């Protein structure tokens, strides 16, 4: 069980949206995390600086929140290590093929009303739901 958090989730979602809007306004870029990561893998993207800076900021955010407010977000990852590795490999391969993930397609692309992003988002939302159903209700969990 996790607690239903409509207010925090809405506020957090608005912050994610704000970052996407600011990245477009200042840098003219889509805030897609998988695309940024890809630009930092060899062969490196020519302007890797803003990508690296964005990701460093994203990593540092929970630390800053903890230091400033003493609040640490709930975190509960129950997936066994082997399955984390398998899941990670699949996510990496999948987002490379699809040219985007939840941030790039799900938020930025859908906001642009891009047909590719709407189709991609539907595709991964359905397959995630099916996967969670199979793991939790057919296999009976890890």
């Amino acid at each position, binding site marked *: 069980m996790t607690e239903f958090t409509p207010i925090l*989730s809405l506020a957090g979602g608005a912050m994610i949206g704000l970052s996407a809007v600011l990245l477009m306004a200042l*840098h003219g870029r889509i805030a897609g995390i998988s695309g940024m990561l890809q630009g930092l893998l060899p062969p490196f993207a020519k302007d890797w600086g803003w990508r690296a800076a964005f990701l460093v900021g994203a990593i540092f955010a929970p630390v800053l929140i903890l230091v400033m407010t003493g609040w640490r977000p709930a975190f509960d990852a129950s997936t066994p290590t082997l399955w984390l590795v398998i899941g990670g490999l699949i996510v990496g391969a*999948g987002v*490379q093929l699809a040219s985007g993930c939840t941030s790039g397609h799900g938020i930025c692309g859908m906001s642009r009303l891009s047909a*590719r992003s709407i189709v991609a988002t539907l595709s991964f939302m359905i397959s995630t739901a099916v996967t969670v159903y199979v793991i939790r209700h057919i296999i009976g969990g890890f």
Partner: protein
Amino acid sequence: MRVFSALLIGLIFGAGIAVSGMINPAKIFNFFDIAGTWDPSLAFVMGGALVVTFIGYRLVWRRQRPVFDSQFHLPTRKDLDPALIGGAALFGIGWGIAGFCPGGAIPALGLGEAQAFIFVAAMLAGLWGMRLLRSLKG
């Protein structure tokens, strides 16, 4: 200034991921587990992000160009190819197994959780491997 602003924008993104609950794999699993311990919170994340981005983008695009660049870099492809649909479906399988998407996992590194480091290392290997594979195939 250009790079520093990206750092601040990344900070806002990471804070949004942390506050919203996207950083927590258990919350991801419960959002998709409609038949079980359903937690609809992540619909509010998506809703909040989409409303702000949808309106914000349109305000931004009234300008000729972004502040630090000569043009907006927007994807131009329109084709719904098998790589898009299949790749997205594949991504969903991995998301359902691990409970991390790329945007959730990166800020989770800042929590110092071992699972996040293991996942991100594997994800980078998958990303790099698939790109290599596709470049070899031409």
